[in-house]
């Protein structure tokens, strides 16, 4: 596995395309099959593929564990923050149409739904990568 040229070259070539497809699935969920959860899982699978081909220590240098831990809570913050913003402007919790944007009501709801999808995608991507790091790497007990 260590000196397998084919796996490493193909991984290096294919990882950007997997990430691009993940972003497409997240952002195109409004008008076709897809959404935040599926896109986040596909995005995380790119990092998992990198970790399998190059080893966990090499993958940890590309996306730090600190980043995954912070991003996992960032996604939930985005989601709940949009809901609380709606309360601040006099609507219900997660009632998007109360937000004061210069757009008709349905378009505000569509736009905010996209932001919510991005939040879910960030959380799922970070948590899946973090779970893979935790499970695949053996930790020395001190």
């Amino acid at each position, binding site marked *: 596995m260590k000196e397998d040229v084919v796996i490493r070259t193909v991984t290096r070539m294919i990882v950007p395309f997997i990430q691009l497809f993940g972003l497409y699935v997240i952002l195109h969920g409004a008008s076709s099959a*897809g959404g935040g959860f599926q896109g986040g*899982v596909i995005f995380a*699978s790119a990092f998992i593929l990198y970790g399998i081909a190059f080893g966990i220590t090499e993958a940890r240098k590309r996306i730090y564990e600190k980043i995954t831990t912070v991003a996992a809570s960032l996604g939930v913050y985005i989601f709940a923050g949009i809901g609380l913003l709606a309360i601040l402007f006099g609507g219900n919790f997660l009632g998007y149409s109360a937000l004061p944007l210069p757009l008709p009501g349905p378009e505000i709801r569509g736009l905010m739904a996209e932001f919510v999808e991005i939040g879910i995608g960030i959380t799922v991507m970070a948590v899946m990568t973090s*779970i893979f790091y935790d*499970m*695949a790497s*053996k930790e020395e007990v001190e």
Partner: protein
Amino acid sequence: MIWEFNFAMFLFLVICAIAAITVRNLLSAVVIFAAYSLIMAVLWAEMNAVDVAFTEAAVGAGITTVLFIAVVSRTTRRSKD
């Protein structure tokens, strides 16, 4: 909604489920379970649930298998029953 297709997929599903809980090598059981998930995703796509089929193909056949294989490689491949 094509009942012949559903029956054929159901036959594969039952064979995969029984094989996944019967086979003694845990790595084989995990791989058979991935095949089970993929067949289930095909069945849901045929029943017009495209979002759920997409999720199952990404999660059940992808992430869950990776997690199972990570755990099997950290513990043991041997199973008594």
